[in-house]
């Protein structure tokens, strides 16, 4: 399987302050990827920056793939300057994908800020194989950070919005909204966003005995489980602690397997 792809950028838009959506064409790549997996993107030729940038796959089309990203450093800044028609080198697909067990009626997504990035593809897949639209808690600092809201509505998702400043939806955190949701139904949860949010979601899900999968993010060099740079402490091996690579054993983890007490707060 070829994992290095030359892609042509077919769309590149500012979707909200500092946030971009990029669509790039490569049929071979599009046919290989699954929701939850990620790509390593070369943002410029030469050594600056030295490493590729890991990006969640936002949506999968017949011959192209989209990513949604936030400009948060020099690498993503350079990426944002690329134009439609230019070529980029994309490595992937990498990592595992979201498990979608079939014996659920309620699929609940909790997305914080740019953590929404892997979920449009997941929603489409759940719709495809279950005929059920996931329910989504979409949270951000303010209304500008509620990305993909329209897309999710078009897909038929029930949305709960939360902003820290109250400029849209509930004023407060995603996890406050989660606390207030009905507990009765058998629910599977998918989450991605800031680590403290994911941790809190995990705690609430544990109380409610809900299965919870988180898409984690980490500083990453190789994307292939080779450099061992992006590890997270887990109990994935029975009997002892295991440093699992976010890029290889993840990025999707059953949150019960993460050793939360060994993860720093920074």
């Amino acid at each position, binding site marked *: *399987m070829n*994992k*290095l792809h030359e892609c042509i950028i077919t769309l590149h838009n500012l979707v909200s302050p500092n946030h971009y959506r990029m669509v790039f064409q490569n049929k071979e790549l599009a046919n290989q990827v699954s929701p939850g997996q990620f790509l390593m993107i*070369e943002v410029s030729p030469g*050594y*600056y*920056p*030295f*490493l*590729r940038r890991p990006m969640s796959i936002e949506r999968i089309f017949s011959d192209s793939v989209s990513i949604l990203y936030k400009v948060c450093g020099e690498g993503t800044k350079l990426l944002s300057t690329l134009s439609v028609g230019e070529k980029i080198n994309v*490595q992937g697909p990498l990592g595992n994908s979201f498990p979608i067990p079939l014996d659920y009626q309620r699929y609940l997504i909790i997305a914080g800020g740019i953590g929404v990035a892997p979920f449009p593809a997941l929603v489409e897949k759940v719709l495809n194989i279950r005929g059920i639209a996931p329910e989504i808690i979409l949270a951000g600092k303010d209304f500008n950070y509620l990305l993909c809201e329209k897309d999710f509505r078009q897909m038929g998702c029930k949305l709960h919005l939360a902003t820290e400043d109250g400029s849209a939806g509930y004023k407060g955190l995603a996890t406050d909204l989660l606390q207030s949701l009905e507990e009765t139904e058998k629910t599977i949860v998918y989450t991605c966003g800031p680590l403290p949010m994911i941790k809190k979601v995990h705690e609430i899900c544990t109380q409610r005995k809900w299965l919870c999968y988180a898409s984690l993010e*980490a*500083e*990453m*060099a*190789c*994307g*292939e*489980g*080779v*450099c*061992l*740079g*992006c*590890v*997270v*402490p887990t109990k994935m091996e029975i009997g002892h*602690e*295991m*440093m699992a690579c976010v890029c*290889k054993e993840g990025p999707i983890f059953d949150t019960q397997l993460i050793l939360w007490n*060994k993860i*720093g707060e*920074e």
Partner: protein
Amino acid sequence: MDINLQVSIGNITLKNPVIVASGTFGYGEEYSEYFDISQLGAVTVKSLTLRPRLGNSPPRIVETPAGMLNAIGLQNVGIETYLKEKLPFLRQKNCTIIANIYGTSIDEYEQLAERLEKEGGADAIEMNLSCPNVHDALNKYKCPLIAQSPEWVEKYTSAVRSKVKLPLIVKLTPNVTDITEPALSAEKGGADAISIINTLLGMSVNPDTCKPRLKNVVGGLSGPAIRPIAVKMVWDVSRTVKIPVVGMGGICYTSDALEFIIAGAKAIAVGSYLFRDPLAPMRIIQGLQDYCISKNIDDINKLVGSIII
């Protein structure tokens, strides 16, 4: 024109001088999805220790200008699992294997080397006497690396030498005043080759949090940022010792590999640039062939140390 790319290290012959560096290629499985890894001169596996190691707490890496810092802390499966689960794959792929070993005492190095030789676990051994990430950061300067003491280098090398016949490569640290001293000691101790350079100690601080970016505080710098230092050390060492030098440090392209070879390296290793371009070693093998043709050189060995000053 028929070009000879074969080079010898100790009593083994590599099909070409392009190796992949320890810690940047796992145990071969991952990148075999990208190319036929048997085409490499050799595969150096991630450092092996007697028992599995968990490694350091994250964050373990940070990108830096033209390179990166790492403080992995020798996370590895341990020699037992390597022999049982990783070695068969490399053997089946017909790779030339350099096993990098790390011990906390002479005895551990001896045990590792003997075990590898007895079980056919390697075609050559690289003694890692220079990992910068296995001591507690605050004690680092009280607890120098073996490779920082010429006396210890000779002691460790000769001890392992007396136990095994496999070619012995000693990997040295650039964190010294004069790299030729430990290099001479390794040669005196019976090493078949010197590999230089391991990473340079470095540090990065996040001004927003006033905290170091690595949990281990300090780490090892690799990538093109360190290449000129590595080339100079290869030049220094190759003029001083009679045994071959394996050069590494920021090699990305054919022209980089050529710099090392012309400066005196008999073989070279691609390291962190693999993370950016897994196909880099294959491009370099082809590039060396093309260079020899263009320069009318029929044997790559003629290029080694051919620098004109």
